[in-house]
């Protein structure tokens, strides 16, 4: 099952602040919901164990996350791969940053996910709703972290 999402978020912080924040795997990892544990594996990568509940598919999924910043293009690419309980999730996402005034940044993002195994059978609507919840919560957490 392949799913795609697009969106635009306004972060109440200067572009340089946002850029520094999203380049830090520890900070990004801290914003993900339902995370049981994380391990920073490099300057731009981390592993996360996440509690997943997709209909009958419930349990821990392990993900490897890697960041690929492109400072010259004001763009951050992100790859997430992993899964659990026989399911596999691969996500490729990208965000373009643009200043929106002095203390605000606009983040235009896009994500493509491929889901295989039992998680794919719960249906697009369930997956989509879950994905929106995860994305929404993550951005809320980013905003919270930066607005302090």
């Amino acid at each position, binding site marked *: *099952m392949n799913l795609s999402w697009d969106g635009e978020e306004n972060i109440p912080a200067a572009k340089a602040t946002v850029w520094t924040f999203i380049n830090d795997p520890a900070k990004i990892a801290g914003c993900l919901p339902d995370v049981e544990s994380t391990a920073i594996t490099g300057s731009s990568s981390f592993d996360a164990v996440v509690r997943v509940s997709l209909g*009958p598919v419930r349990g821990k999924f392990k993900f490897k996350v890697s960041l690929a910043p492109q400072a010259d293009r004001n763009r951050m690419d992100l790859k997430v791969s992993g899964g659990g309980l026989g*399911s596999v999730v691969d996500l490729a996402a990208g965000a373009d940053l643009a200043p929106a005034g002095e203390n605000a940044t606009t983040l235009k993002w896009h994500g493509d996910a491929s889901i295989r195994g039992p998680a*794919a*059978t719960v249906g697009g609507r369930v997956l989509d709703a879950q994905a929106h919840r995860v994305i929404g919560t993550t951005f809320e957490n980013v905003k919270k972290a930066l607005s302090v």
Partner: protein
Amino acid sequence: MTASIGVAMKRKEDPRFIRGRGRYLDDIVLPNMLYLALVHSPYPHARIKSIDKSKALALPGVKAVITGEDLDAAKLEWLPTFHGYDKQMVLAFGKALYQYQEVAGVVATSREIAEDGVELVEVEYEPLDPVVNPFQSKEDKIILRDDRESKTNHIYHWEVGDKEKTAAALDSSAVRIKERILSPRCHPAPLEPCGIVADMNKATGRLTVYMTSQAPHVHRTAFSLVTGIPEDKIHFISPDVGGGFGNKVPVYPGYVVATVASVIIGVPVKWVETRTENLTTTGFARDYHMDVEIGATNDGRVTALKVSTTADHGAFDAAADPRKYPAGLFGIVTGSYDFPTAFAEVDAYFTNKAPGGIAYRCSFRVTEASYAIERSMDILARKLDMDPAELRRRNFVAKDKFPYSSPLGFVYDSGDYEATLRKALDKIGYDSLRKEQAEKRKRGELMGIGISTFTEVVGAGPGKHFDILGIKMFDSAEIRIHPTGSGIVRAGTRHQGQGHETTYAQIVGEELGLDPQELLVEEGDTDTAPYGLGTYASRSTPVAGAALAMAARRIREKAKKIAAHLMEVSEADVEWSDYKFNVKGIPGKSVTMKDVAFAAYTNPPPATEPGLEATYYYDPPNMTFPNGAYVAVVDVDRDTGHVQVRRFLAVDDCGVVVNPMIVEGQIHGGLTEGFAMAFMQQIVYDDAGNHLNTNFTDYLVPTALETPHWETDRTVTPSPHHPIGAKGVGESPNVGSPQAFVNAVMDALAPLGVTHLDMPLTREKVWRAIREAEAKT
């Protein structure tokens, strides 16, 4: 004694089933038993780069982790498929070829630990683009099987009939129809999934295998051939089996891995699959895309039939068809109709889907064939603007034409199609239903009547045509009568709920004048039962039932000698009638089989071998051709697409009926499966090769709430070549019913101009068809 055949005797096996005292595979628990759980591929097509067992092996309780590499080292990685055209991987080796394919096995002290161990096996995959349908496969852009010399996904081309004559006849026909008809990928989904307990006793060197098997003898031979363990050192026991429907004929990776683990470790190893494993990895059925063409005259006489099929076989050609018949008995596609000429061809392809193509409650591709012809006859009737019952009548093989040689090579044994259809139409009140329909149509209401007048072919052998692994498709019986006149009856088949313990006792009881209640029927133990090919393809009563009757007649021959001795008359003066031995011309002078049985052990005639037992291996001279006329009446809700099956009548002709209650039960079960296929069931893969029906919330099985009320009746034209005239019935309702439902729905949608929709006719599909049709007007 009175008659046993034809009596609606209660099933002897039911008290233990009803009271929960059956003994199924999962009830078997042996000392020191270990449990196997399997790692499955999440990818439909991927290279396996590495498998790391270390974390799983470190888990306390895990005893072994087995991979394809381990099996390859033991030369057990590849198994022959039953018909011998292909081989299949036990565990994904090099590449995974379908989603959920077995990749590794974890053996542990409990099922739970084994499942936890599965989570700890780390497999690194390199995903490859999948091939998800046979039409994509045909392009050969992605070659799936590295192991084959042939670098194409095409598996075989098979054809039967006269191609040129059929093409010419179609070209010169006044009326022609052509339609692509899909018999969708579905799954037998037996209530009990598959399982095994393999128990290698290193002290005796003997391997005991408890397995959910429809064919324990064939499985024993297959295990011996593949493992090299001598056949006498393998003991197969197929315990009570909770439904098979063809799903328990193939050999699955879990069986092999559990056996290998037991042989290596020397303790029993159990594997019982989950529902998801059953639906995603074990033998699916059908997936035939059939292009059907019929030619006819303006007055509705068929002139020719051509069927070109594209078959999706999944990753391996594991269809359990007889060796010479890669497309099974698809040649039955001319059905009940007297086609002057016909041609059928099947091209099969590999895809990244689970292997199978098993005979789900049918004799090898008969359901597909029957669906194709019955659906097409309705499409032709529509084109001719002729009543579908009338079109069928005009084209039936006439009663006086039997034995009838079909243009695709079968010799039909017997039938009276006209009488069977007449009985069905009279009973359902066809004419008044058509009147009601005409009135409803005026009001815009959607009511439909669907007919299926199918002929199927069951009871394989004969051995000269059919074999599995080279073994001729005979079957066998052994009867041993005890001194007090009760006895034990054994057969080479293995029932999965069909009621053999009763039906077989009735056949033997009838032949010997003994009480079926005192005849114990035993099957499924290869140490005691005579060698047989098993229970599938409606072959139990046609083949093993015949063997039982013949073995009983052998007993009767010997019993006659003993009877003559007891009555002190010449054997020539003794005759068997009224279920006892009588002296010709002397009324009242008789002995019963019970008297004879006692004498066989206590007072045998001089120079006569004591005892009373016989064995018979029956190789049928021909197959049998059960048939029927089914009528479905449906009301379709225009707003929601809901189809209400108002009535369903099945008139079956399965020859002589041994136990009418059991036959009726078989028909109810098969109709319920046919209903499920018509309206609910399809194994769906998405474009990325994901299997989307992995459990019973997504792959639906009808409950009592959805299941319509079934009406049944029968006609009887005995099979002339079967010792008791029986034809077999297990499959008829499954083979004959889907098209009756679909024809009924298409008839209901006729005013909207809808010609054909593929099964399953879900509410959504029907609703969309109605909306699209309305949008056009």
